[in-house]
């Protein structure tokens, strides 16, 4: 265990910070950090850019954050918007808002409400996604995977009510898991032990081991029992 004491970084207003190893980082207002940041606790309120990677055991993002590198930690809480190059690794991810990661993403628990864009693989133990906007994830893999729409009143206030393009749905290539429950999802291939295809799905191929349930309002081109 490291016992060395690192400095804190606390910024407010319009600020510029330097990268480095900190104990606690608290950013309020608008600013950017030059370089990689490593901290025990990282809290950002407002609009911040990190021109590098971020490593912190506990991370809280409120507002808008852009990370130009990867993110690694144990716990990530997001209220707002996160854009990162990736990869993103955390034990627990709780997301409320919009997240956009260019690379891979992995978490033991990944719980998101909002709009999710992941350019690589989302790998998780328990994945739960409640969509409030259009989402796009290249691949999803894990133990329990659940994708559904958030309750209508949550997103009908948004553009979705007026603009069809903004209705919450997920685009994915492959989804593989022990238990897959998805609705309003377009995917090329879905594979799993137990697969539940809900309403609004369009799937090319479904492969399952023990159980398959398909909602009447789903279109599947081909299904195979393994």
């Amino acid at each position, binding site marked *: 265990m490291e016992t060395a004491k690192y400095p804190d970084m606390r910024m407010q207003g319009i600020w510029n910070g330097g990268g480095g190893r900190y104990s606690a980082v608290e950013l309020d207002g608008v600013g950017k950090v030059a370089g990689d940041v490593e901290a025990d606790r990282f809290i950002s309120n407002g609009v911040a850019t990190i021109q590098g990677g971020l490593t912190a055991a506990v991370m809280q993002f409120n507002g808008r954050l852009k990370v130009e590198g990867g993110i690694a930690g144990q716990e990530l809480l997001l209220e707002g918007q996160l854009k990162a190059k990736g990869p993103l690794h955390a034990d627990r991810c709780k997301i409320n808002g919009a997240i956009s990661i260019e690379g891979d993403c992995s978490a033991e628990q990944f719980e998101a409400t909002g709009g999710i864009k992941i350019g690589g693989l989302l*790998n998780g133990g328990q994945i739960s996604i409640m969509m409030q906007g259009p989402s796009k994830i290249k691949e999803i893999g894990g133990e329990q995977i659940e994708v559904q729409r958030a309750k209508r009143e949550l997103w009908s206030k948004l553009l979705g009510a007026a603009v069809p393009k903004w209705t919450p749905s997920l685009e994915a290539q*492959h989804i*593989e898991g022990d238990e897959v429950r998805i609705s309003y999802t377009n995917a090329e*291939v879905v594979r799993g*032990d137990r697969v539940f295809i809900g309403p609004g799905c369009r799937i090319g191929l479904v492969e399952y081991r023990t159980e398959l349930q398909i909602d009447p309002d789903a279109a599947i081109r081909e299904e195979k029992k393994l």
Partner: protein
Amino acid sequence: MEQDLISKKDLLELTGISYGQLYRWKRKQLIPEQWFIRKSTFTGQETFFPRQLILSRIEKIVDRKEDFSLDEVAEMLSATPYDYEISKAALIERNIVSKEALRYWASKDAEDVVYPFDRILFFGLADRLLQTGDMSADEGEMVLDMLSRDYRKWGDHPCDLLFIRKMGISIAALLPADSGFYLDQGAKLVARISIQAEVEQLKGKLF
């Protein structure tokens, strides 16, 4: 040379593990990233694995996951040797490297010298060739020289040690584990040893 690959689907069928387990082990870095090979098939991009490597790896994980946490298993399996050092005397005492091997190649080192993990690994590899009678002690010097000079150049990439003979001349080579090669007709491949397998075995002995 087409390397022997196995598709993810066949792998799960053969081993009886589930998608969830495979993804979990990937998350925990029990399976190296380089082993996930993407290929285009009629269902789009599919994942394949080097057959031998993945099968022996899964067997090891399944064997150990009852007694150890996944993080501990990951530590045992990681290809990057960790900081583990051991003295020459203890190597003999714990029968990790044979007496003969150390007499041939480490006679100049004091009894209480402490070897880094890499050095122990190189002794182990050379010792294995010595014990099977595939290689003489002098040739062992050559192998050890090459390993200490070039092994780290592959970084974390798993590689194999090749031992080749032609008309009494011996050649040692290091190749990435997933690569093939061709020899001319007069040359004979005496041995091909997976260094990663040796690392894992050695860790098993050291733990």
